[in-house]
């Protein structure tokens, strides 16, 4: 047994009262969860404390909260872990803070309203199979490999932790969001679905769709089930852009193509050319400048002028699109060959399915690598 201080963000819906913090001390086995701590508070200290839960085993998805600022499941976070995190920068006396999930209205204490911020968005992506043609007489027959591809998104328990953490949604509440877009991939990737193209068009053309994700990894970090919603969004972009060649109104496809083509030609980024080609391709590329693109280009002119005035873009190569230098010697030729090779194969390694040989990290010591190799360590999907 050990003592833990819980600092809980409380809110009662009665008019006139704003949210406030309240501290509770609990005495529990450190291996028990933060949810166990909250339930003990409710049973022994304050029966009015509201928290949503059911399975206590990270399966039902109802206990999403923020613990020390991190969106997660209360039943999946050990008290000992939470305490260590709360105290990692200053001493040993900080309480574990527990707040309701972010980006959602609070109903009471730790209970949020997920209807408008989560469930409506899930329904927005038509989360059921739309098969082509008449259904077969018996079951659908699909190769098992083709279903493995969507298992990662099927692991979602609809807890909303990713929505709570999403930094695009913080700036744009209309963003379709990580959970719903991961769910969209679940059907785009399903070989039985007959509306793949329509689904992709819909999500690419929506200004709050796949191109509104700011690539912040907050959902990847928050998700307790390894769904990695951002990775699914990037797969949707790959399919919508590269495979279906959907020229969306959000500049998503044009920006991606411009970037990819510049690196093929120059090796490093030519920002002036990227700006021009993202908004108004067609001067060099095969696409025609779309409606709105010219305006977007003009919207960016004040920024470009400021760059010139501040001395950021004084040399000619930063002003005139396209005169940025190539890589030295034959390096550019090698980069081009890499492009040809990768376009020919387009391998998409999925670590959720594959698992990892080595632990992540950027400075694995040689011994650690050797050790992993000896043990033949294999990562398994959570």
């Amino acid at each position, binding site marked *: 047994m050990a003592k833990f201080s819980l600092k809980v963000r409380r809110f009662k819906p009665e008019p006139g009262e704003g949210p406030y913090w309240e501290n509770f001390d609990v005495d529990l086995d450190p291996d028990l969860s933060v949810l166990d701590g909250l339930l003990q508070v409710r049973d022994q200290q304050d029966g009015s404390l509201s928290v949503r839960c059911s399975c206590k085993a990270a399966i039902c998805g109802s206990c999403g909260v923020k613990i020390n600022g991190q969106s997660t499941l209360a039943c999946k976070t050990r008290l000992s872990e939470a305490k260590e995190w709360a105290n990692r*920068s200053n001493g040993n006396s900080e309480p574990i803070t527990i707040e309701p999930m972010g980006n959602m209205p609070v109903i009471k204490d730790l209970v949020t309203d997920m209807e408008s911020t989560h469930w409506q968005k899930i329904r927005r992506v038509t989360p059921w199979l739309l098969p082509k043609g008449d259904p077969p007489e018996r079951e659908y027959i699909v190769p098992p490999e083709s279903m493995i591809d969507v298992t990662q998104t099927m692991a979602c328990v609809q807890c909303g932790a990713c929505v709570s953490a999403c930094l*695009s949604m*913080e*700036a*744009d509440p209309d963003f379709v969001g990580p959970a719903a877009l991961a769910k969209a991939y679940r059907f785009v990737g399903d070989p039985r679905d007959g509306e793949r193209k329509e689904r992709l068009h819909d999500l690419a053309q929506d200004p709050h769709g796949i*191109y*509104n994700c*700011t*690539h*912040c*990894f*907050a959902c*990847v*970090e928050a998700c307790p089930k390894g769904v990695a919603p951002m990775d699914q969004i990037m797969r949707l972009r*790959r399919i919508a*852009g*590269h495979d279906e060649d959907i020229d969306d109104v959000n500049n998503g496809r044009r*920006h*991606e*193509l411009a*970037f*990819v083509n510049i*690196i093929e030609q120059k090796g*490093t*980024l030519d*920002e002036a050319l990227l700006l021009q080609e*993202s*908004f108004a391709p067609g001067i060099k590329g095969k696409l025609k400048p779309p409606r709105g693109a010219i305006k977007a280009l003009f919207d960016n002119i*004040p*920024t470009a002028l*400021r*760059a010139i005035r*501040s001395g*950021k873009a004084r040399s000619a190569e930063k002003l005139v699109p396209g005169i940025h230098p190539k890589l*030295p*010697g034959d390096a550019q030729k*090698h980069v081009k*060959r*890499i*492009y040809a090779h990768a*376009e020919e*194969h*387009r*391998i*998409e*390694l999925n*670590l959720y399915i*594959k*698992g*990892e*040989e*080595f*632990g*992540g*990290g*950027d*400075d*694995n010591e*040689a011994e650690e*690598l050797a050790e992993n190799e000896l043990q033949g360590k294999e990562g398994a999907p959570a």
Partner: protein
Amino acid sequence: MSPAKNLKFAYWPGCVSRGFTTELHGSMALVAEKLEIELVELDRANCCGAGVIAEHNQELADTLNARTFALAQQTGLPMMNICSTCQGAQSECRQRLDADKAYREHVNGALAEEGLSYDPEGFSNKNFLWVLVEDYGLQKLKNRVVRPLEGLRVGPFYGCYVLRPRHRLGYDQHPERDLYLEKVIEALGGTVVEYDGARKCCGFPVITMSREVSLRQAGTHLGDAMDAGADCLVTPCPLCHLNLDMQQPEAAKVTGKDLDLAVLHLPQLVGLALGIDPKELGLGKHVASTKWVIDRLEPVSA
């Protein structure tokens, strides 16, 4: 590594530090010299793809970065970058390359003609922020400070790509990487300003696709830091710098706030404390004025 104590790295400056934020590349060179860190620039290396190339073709992004890693390995040195985005994009590709031998061999096949091959064994690629804390050492840094940033209130701004996902970015071994900016600011004699946005997104990745959302993110964080009393922000990411500094007047329009906050690149902040002339560090090349910051520092008595 040479027996000498000095640090030496294969250095990947990234595209943006040689494009729109040349003051970053320049200040890094000056700071490295002062700290006696030797940098061997990888001038044949290519763009990391910034996550955008992976959005087009994952194998292409992996192969392009494997090429950069292999070029670094040719020098026999560990690799250093000065861009959170390079760090994140490269770590992502590296995770896949390291995870599967057959895949790695396939990718290396595309590098063979150039005489290159990436081998995960012993390879290391770190952002300057990580190098500063883990390899150089905060105590040693403190000893080099000739102009403590006394009274300067600095807000840290990390950039998503050196924060998340933790597992991929070596946090298992170095769990405090998301506290390093605070530690560096303190080592330089400055005061850390706590505000909401330090570990949030600057919005840059969607600037061309969802301009308002992007600028609202940048503007909100700048406003929060100003409200918390910051004299400036410091960031290890030049892309964050573009949205927070170059786009600051646009972010002000979108958020309806009167924004005026200097945003320093990490080597610039270090350089100021090491006594380097603000002008040489390129503080005059910013959009948001850095005068307030410079005026608050003691002139160095050479």
